[in-house]
């Protein structure tokens, strides 16, 4: 894969669609093109986060460790961005990401990522809306879960 191919893939990502090609080229040039084999780990839950990954090709699973064992919470496909939370707010990785088949990514280091966000407010906005979207989903899930928990507690009666 040449740099130019990576740039083409980036241009197709809605988040980056408004950025001029030269800047996308700089992003691709300052990032690392990484290919993973099936089941290889991009990063693990709890590790310090130093980079975000843009999926150029293939797929990956987001897995969260729970007391009852690992649970796959989402699938990632081409054009998805993953791992930005840990570098945005300096917390350890909140989940593990495992490669599916034929995964190729662009690994954007912390500095390059901040550079991108500060230089292009639309990228920041895009990420904000993506995060807000996820937060909304999480809130919905949480509401559902706590409603169900209350039902269960009421069903079993006071202890």
């Amino acid at each position, binding site marked *: *894969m*040449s740099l130019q191919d*990576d740039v083409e893939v980036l241009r197709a990502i809605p988040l980056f669609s408004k950025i001029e090609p*030269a800047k996308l080229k700089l992003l691709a040039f*300052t990032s690392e093109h*990484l290919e*993973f084999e099936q089941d290889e780990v991009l990063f693990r839950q709890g590790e310090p986060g130093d980079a975000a990954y843009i999926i150029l090709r293939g797929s990956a699973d987001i897995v969260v460790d729970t007391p009852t064992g690992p649970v796959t919470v989402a699938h990632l496909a081409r054009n998805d961005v993953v791992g930005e939370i840990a570098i945005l707010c300096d917390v350890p990785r909140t989940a593990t990401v495992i490669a599916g088949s034929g995964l190729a990514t662009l690994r954007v280091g912390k500095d390059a990522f901040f550079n991108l966000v500060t230089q292009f407010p639309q990228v920041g906005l895009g990420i904000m809306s993506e995060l807000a979207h996820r937060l909304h989903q999480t809130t919905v899930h949480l509401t559902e879960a706590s409603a169900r928990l209350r039902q269960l507690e009421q069903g079993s009666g006071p202890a």
Partner: protein
Amino acid sequence: MEPTIFGYIRRHSWKEQMIVLGMTIASFPFLYWSLDLPKTIVNDALGQADQQHNFYGFELDKFGYLFALCGLFLVLVLINGIFKYVINVYAGLVAERMLRRLRYDLYSQILRFPLPHMKRVSSGEIVQMINAETEALGGYIGTALQIPAYQGGTLLVILTFIFVQDPVLGLAAIALYPIQAYLIPKLQRRVNQLGKQRIRQVRRLADRISETVSGVRDLRANDATQYERARMSSELSVVYYIRYRIYILKFLIKFINNFFAQIAPFFFFSIGGYLVLTGNISLGAIVAVLSAHKDLSSPWRELLDYYQLMQDVRIKYDQVVSQFQPRGQIDERRQLDEPTAELSFEGSIEARGVVVRDDDGDALLDNVTLAVPMPSTVAILGPGGGGREELTLVLAGLIPPDSGRVTIGGHDLTQLPDAVLGRKMAFVGFPPFVGSDTIEDNLLMGLRHRPVRPYQPSPEEEKLYRRQLRDTEQAGNSPFDFRADWVDWTLAGVTEEQERLPTIVGILELIQLDADVYMLGLRGTIRHDRFDDLRERLLEVRAAMHERLETDESLARLVERFDPERYNSNATLAENLLFGAPRDDQFQIDRLAEHPYVRRVLDQVGITDELRRVGLALARTMVELFADLPPDHEYYQQFSFIRAEDLPDYQSLVARADPEALDRLDQEDRQRLLALPFRLINSRHRLGLITRELEEKLLEARKVFRENLPPEYAASVAFFEPDAFNDAASVQDNVLFGKIAYGVAQAPVRVATLIRQLLEEAGLRERIIEVGLSFRCGPGGARLSMAQRQKLAMARALIRRPAVLILHEALTAVDAAEQPAMADRVLEAMAGRTVIWSLARADLADKFQQAIMMDKGKIVEAGAQAAEAAPQEADA
């Protein structure tokens, strides 16, 4: 040291001075004779030419006599010259010897400075004194007697000669000397005072400079550089005016001397002329007096210069030596003497009423009394500045108490020589000292007390070696040979040579420095003879690595091996061209494009223009990518092929250049383009600029480069050979023999793990650590982290198995979570012996048999349960 320079000269070079003096006196008769001869030539050979002449028993005619006398004059000139030469060389030898001795003596004084004094001395000033200020002293010492004797003697001889010719003329010649002798010292005294000021000021300069060097980071961080510049200007201005005034005075002195010297012929012509006219003196005598007087001015000037120099060095010596003899200096014998009897370290370490004061007289330790039974373990706790550090230093015998007594097994600590303290006891303080030598040198510092085995010179060195020994002794330098074997392994409990490395590795493991040194070993190169056998073993590991890569597909894609016949897309273009590692800076990557031989190779293969086109394409990309970035953006450092300050040049170059007509560009532009592509790595930069055809041609260039390499460059590059060890590449690179692939996830980590695994399977872990031991630590150990330095200092103390180990904040930089376990291991290694450990962390105290709480220089609490006694303790 002697209080004055004259005492120093008398004590250390009396014999040499006498030899100089003897040779000087022996030269005088010839000098007198050579003065007298012109008169004989003028009066006898020319004045009475028609007589027969008797020349030492030979009857000669007028021509024979003239030429015989002239021949004799020539011989005398030669003899005088030889005397001068021999005396100068010998005086120079004495000067160098004395300079060497003086520097050595001053250096020895530093080693005896009391520790509190070290806070007051500036290393800049000390360096200035030992290096620069002694230079003039050495020069003077060599000529201390020679110049007054020779020049004074010459002066006397010439004056005697003049007086013999005519007393009146003699009086005329010296008539003005009293005036000079009165005026000159007066002026000289003012020069001396200025000289003193100058020395002080130059030292301040040296101090300022060395302080700036160590503080550049913070000066910049505070934007204080302009203030420092102004300060330096003002210091320099002080030196400037002092020196200017010295010059004015010096040249005034010179003027007076010259004036009086040149006024003398006035007397000769007037008085002498009158005497000749009245027939009271011969014309020959006047000629001889005039020529003698010409010779008179030079020794007189030399004597006056000497007088100035003598005054100068007298002050310098005084000012230097007084700085090197601080109050409370450690007795020399305590450092030089070997202990006469084995000292028993039994009983206890006791401090009774110990008081230590700082410069202002405040008590740092205030009447401290304690007893530490041996063996036992003691923790000293308390806030920083509460006296913990001073207590450990006093107990280690490194600072003497101002009052009170510290004893060990009944012996007064201040009376024990370093040879006892520095061997039976060990001290690690904060910050620990790590020198610029190798890790091994730093580690074994405590095993090097005296040479164990003398140095054995090879037969061809033998003569030189003996001469060096003699010269060293005559200069009063160290009686021990630096090249001797100094390491006393028995102190580490090692008797067999093959136990040495395992012992070191064991200590490193104990202190958990082994992994770090192992990493340094992997990155290190091996050129030393002692690794001869390791090369073969590493080649075996390389083969094993190759096999693993061949057989395991998931590993194969991690590494691209070097293949002489193939272009390595994970290596730079430069590496592909050289196909070797540069041994020196001849073929450094930045200079390849300018290197005449590289250019010749590229021309021969015919790819120079093509590389320029690649350079142009690369420049276009860089200009496109980086054009909008501010010049100080970190991307330039990390990613750009072009430095920020060069970008505008390339922008205009890219706009001008036509890829099809590069020869229209000027020489400089073409050079610029050619310099760019050497750092290109195909699979990292993914720019697609190096085509298949260019790769083929570069492979051809690789062959041409190697085959035609001129002999003068042969040592500058170590070629990659599948079956040979490359001594310019690191251990790791030799095993890998290739490049870690870009774009493969986790490749560097997985390759490192594989290399480590293979080396361990081959049983080479210890040997790699041995390679790591030869890592040089940098000035002040700067190439190691503080935690590594602390661990190294601790390992240094432990390896010599001291009876008493005294520590002050010795592991503070080590990861806080690691500290308790490490303290356990240190205490375990010291089991059955004594440990006194000053700690900032109260939570470690329960590991010790006894805990002492210090505050404000007093022991506020002592007992076995000290863990709760320090609620205010913060972490290290």
